[in-house]
Structure formats: C-alpha cells, structure tokens
C-alpha cells in the first residue's frame, strides 16, 4: 500500500523523458485517463449543471447543487456520516492494530497463513457477506442464539435495523483495510528495536507507546485513510443492516442517481467526497519528520 501511494522516484539525472518513455507509459496513461480522469471530469462537469423537470441534465452553468449541500438537512446527514465513519475507524484501529501487530511478529510460515485468513473474505461477494450478517443479527439469528445459550441475555435483542448493526457491518467490512497496511508497517519494524527499548527499562506498555506506535505510524495513517473515507460513502451496509433507518451520505448520493434522478446534485456530492479524500490523503500520508531529513 505504501509503495502504491508514495510518489515515484525522480527520473535519473533529471532528464526529460524521451519518446520511448512516453510510448512505454502510454498504456498506463490511457488507462488512467479512461478510468480515473475522464469519469472524475464528467462528475465535475455534471456537478455544475442543472436538471430539467424529468431529470435530464441541462448543460448550463450553476452552483445550485453545491449550495444545496449546505442545507441543514444534508449537513446533518453529512455530520452523521462522518460520525459513523469515525466510530468505524476507531473500532477498526482498536481491533486491527493488535491483530496486525501479532501477525507481523509471527514466524514467516504462520504469518503467511494468518494473512491469508485476513484476505479470505474478499473471495466472496461483499453483498453476500452482508446478507450473512442479516442471518447472524436477526431476532432468531445466530448472535441471539449464542448469547441466549450462554445465559448472557434474558430475552432476544433485536439487533437488525439498528445503528449498532450498521456499525458492526461497517467494522466487519473495513477491518481488513486497517489490518493490511498496519501489518506492512509492523513487519518492517525490527525486533531489535523492541528488545533495545525493553533493555533500556521500557515495560510492555512503554515499548508500545514509545517505539512500536511511532514506527508504525505510516501504516496507521494508511489504514485510517482506507477505512475512514470509504466508510463515509458506504451505502449497502446502511441499506441492508440499517434497514435504511439511518441514511448516510452514501445513501443520499445513491438516491440522487437512481430514485431522485438529480444527477447534478449527486455529482456535486461526489466531488465534495473526492476532495475530502484528497485532503485526508495529504494530512495522513506526510512522510515522518525523521525520514524527511537528508542523510
């Protein structure tokens, strides 16, 4: 992940790339233009357009869609989305960090197997896995059955279609995206450093706080980025597990394109969302101070 997000090395000797280099780059540039730049461009153009009565896009400039985002109703939804995303990110971090750290410190063979377990869910469709959660969370579902048989619950609790179910679903969906970048960071952390800290009098907690956390900060940053922003825009989990009781910004965007047929407004929300990602990226992917200094 780090390698993917970091900027490429400067061209050797500062030479401008020649024709051959451009030709070699062409397929990738074409791919990027076709699937990243063009769709974003269309989104940006639509966001400044208007719609007619039957929902067709009219190409005349207007900032109306952006003004609408600032209406209290939408701001409230946006705020709620940020809250859910923040809670999801925090829970993923609390659950994911120990898991990632544990996996990274195992012997290579076991490490590979544990890592595979983290990635196994990706083999099944995300929607199917979310439907599985309905079976677990419903009134006569697995969770109540287990808690009931352990006598932890007097009566079955209705988990499904509650904010709790939404948070469970979100944390479940995004946990691997927190674990993987932290794992990549923790794997690079040399065991000697942890031993040196202990040797100098640091107990387990202080080894963690003074050495492990600072040195895995890039992984934590990447994990937050990969969980927080997508969690804001997630709509399937809120629909399926929340029963559309608590609309988040993702549901609003989806609605604009499908039911409300207000593409310019949906596009404006999309653009704001993309900018949000860009800002988070800049904030979270800064090179640590100790790596920025020249050797």
């Amino acid at each position, binding site marked *: 992940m780090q390698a993917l997000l970091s900027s490429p090395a400067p061209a050797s000797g500062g030479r401008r790339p020649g024709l051959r280099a451009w030709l070699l780059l062409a397929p990738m540039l074409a791919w990027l233009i076709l699937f990243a730049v063009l769709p974003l461009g269309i989104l940006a153009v639509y966001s400044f357009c208007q719609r007619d009565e039957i929902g067709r896009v009219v190409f005349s400039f207007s900032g109306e869609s952006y003004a609408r985002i600032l209406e209290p109703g939408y701001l409230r939804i946006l705020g709620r989305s940020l809250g859910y995303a923040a809670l999801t990110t925090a829970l993923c971090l609390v659950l994911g960090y120990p898991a990632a750290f544990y996996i990274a410190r195992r012997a290579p063979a076991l490490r590979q197997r544990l890592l595979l377990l983290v990635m196994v869910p990706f083999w099944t469709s995300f929607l199917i896995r979310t439907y599985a959660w309905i079976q677990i969370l419903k009134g006569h579902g697995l969770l109540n059955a287990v808690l009931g048989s352990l006598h932890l619950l007097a009566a079955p609790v209705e988990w499904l279609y509650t904010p709790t179910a939404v948070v469970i679903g979100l944390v479940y969906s995004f946990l691997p995206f927190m674990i993987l970048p932290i794992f990549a960071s923790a794997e690079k952390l*040399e065991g*000697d*450093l942890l*031993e*040196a*800290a*202990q*040797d*100098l*009098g*640091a*107990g387990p907690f*202080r080894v963690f706080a*003074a*050495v492990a956390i*600072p*040195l895995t900060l890039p992984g934590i940053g990447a994990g937050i980025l990969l969980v927080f922003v997508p969690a804001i825009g997630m709509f399937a989990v809120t629909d399926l597990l929340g029963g559309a009781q608590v609309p988040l910004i993702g549901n609003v965007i989806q609605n604009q394109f499908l039911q409300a047929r207000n593409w310019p407004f949906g596009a404006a929300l999309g653009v704001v969302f993309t900018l949000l990602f860009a800002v988070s990226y800049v904030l979270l992917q800064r090179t*640590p101070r*100790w*790596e920025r*200094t*020249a*050797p």
Partner: protein
Amino acid sequence: MSDPIELRGLTKRFGSVTAVDDVSLQVGAGELLTLLGPSGCGKTTLLRLLSGFEQPTAGAILVAGVDVTGLAPYRRDINQVFQSYALFPHLTVRENIAFGLRMQRVGRAESAARVAEAIALVSLEGLESRYPHQLSGGQRQRVALARAVVPRPRVLLLDEPLSALDAKLRREMQVELRRLQQKVGVTTILVTHDQEEALAMSDRIAVMNAGRVEQLGTGEEVYHRPRTPFVAGFLGESNLLPVRVVAARGHEVELQSADGWRLTVTSPAPCAAGEARLISVRPERVRLARAAPGGPALPGRILEATFLGATVRLVVEMESRQRLTVLSPETGATGAAEPGAVVDCTFDPADAVLLTSPPPAA
C-alpha cells in the same frame, strides 16, 4: 555503578539442543570479560540469558550477589549494545541517548546534564539533533554505547559491537571502546568471534565451544597456555603434534612422538605414563635450525612458502607426513625457504604446551 556478576551452572536447552551447557563464571566489578567462540558456540544465547530475553533451563545469574534470573529485561540493571546497534530511527541522537533515563523517569535537568556528559564522553558534540540514518557506522556505534551507559547499568553487555565496521575503524574502536569502558568503570561482558578483538580489549577471555567454557584466563594465558586443542586452534594458529607420555615425575613430563623424538615439558595437570596427548606449538615459535637445547630435531621438506612481508609462512612436511606450519623471519634472501628445500625445524621445550586430552565427543 560497577558490580560483580556471577553465573552459576547456567544451562539453556532448546528442545534437544543444549545451547549453553552448565556455565559458571564470575566477572569482577569493573572487569571486561570476553566470551570468545565461533558462531553456534552458545555465546549469543548466553548473552540473551544475561539480558533476560531468554530464560535459563537451569542455573542462576547474580548481580552484586542478588539473584536476577527471573527478572524481565526491563527490570534488570543490565544494558546492552546490540550488534545492529538498534538505534531508534525516529529519535535524534540526543533522544536515543536519553531513552533509558526517560524510562527511569529521571528529571529533565538531570537527564539533560547526563546526556550531555555522555555525548562528550563519546565525542559526538554537534551531532545531537541528527537522526541515526544521518550518521556514519562509527558514530552509530558511539551513540549505541552512550545510550547503554547513560542509565548507569550495573553490567554492560556488548554483542559483537564492532562487527559492522571496516577493519581500520574496528582497530580504532577497539582501543576507544576499551578506554571508555575503563573510564566509566562498568563491569562488561563482550561477545565476539574475533580473537584479535578479544585479545586487544579483555581483562579475561572465556573461550567457548559447544555451549561450554573451554578455558578462562587472561589473553596471555589463553594464548600461550591453551589447555585444549580447540583453544589452541581457535586463538591463533597452532601445530598440534601427537605424543605419548613416557614418564611423569610431578609436573615434569617426558614425552615421545611417533617419530621417536623426545621432549620434557612441565604439565599444569598430573598425567600418567602411557597416555596419548597432543602438544601445541605456535608457528612463530618453530625455528628453522638444528635441534635447540632440549628441543627435538624435526627434519622435513618445504611444501609451500608464502611471503607475508615481515615473515614467511612455511608448510613443512616431516618424514612422518605430519605437517608443520612455521612463521619464519627468513624472508627468502638466503634462498633457504624455497619450496622443495630440505630444512631442519625445532622449537624450545618451553614453547610446547601439553594439552589435556580432548573431551569425549558429546
């Protein structure tokens, strides 16, 4: 800040492998003792037992008479300089050195003063705000040392501290490290596989082999009076010649070789007539000459001659096919030290060391 450390019957087994086998030794306050041995001899495991990263299967570790065997690494007043230095990459030189004091919750003013003192001690003034990746290998080594001594440990452990440096810097740092150790006066255990490093730096050397201490003594003792074939061969080069005990009168032992020459040496331990033993003779103690007084006459033919500058290294094959390595000042000007030349070799009986019989293979 300097205390003796004692190891009592320390043993560490990993499954069926015995890495450290019943090691007992004492290191006096302020002394520098070296654990010397080839890789796999157990010296690194022994160090990890002392630092607390491994728990012994049996035995005890006492620092200033207090048993620390069960204590976690962060509860021991034993600090280590790691082979990789293990400097914290996210902390500056100053912050790295202050780390131990921070963990001990030493006050800000005292910490600053002690760190400044340590930085002056290892001559790193002006580099306080650098990060480890901005330092040279020698500078990192100094930071690692300063970081380990600043919390005033009772015992300092040095794990192959100079192995990452080039040969020239290594020689300089040997002297430097020894000077600093004596200045600070901290009881120190050094682990190395480099015999030159061990001889240059140590008060005493414990030569380790297969998890055991084969011989413990000063550099001179271990080099000049090795007790086992392993010690004779590991510290410097050695000619091992098989002999048989003909007669023993107290420490006076009369020996005879398969070739028939006889030799009388003094033995550190009693031995009985008829025993098969080895004697060790250093290549630089073998001379190209007719028999020295009391020494054997060993005629042979030169197989190889390697010019080394001040000396010439010769491999001489004797009539018994036994080969003898000779370091001779005859640098070829006389023409006597050419391959094929027939020469007489001899050595002074005082330079022959009677080895104890090799321990039975485990």
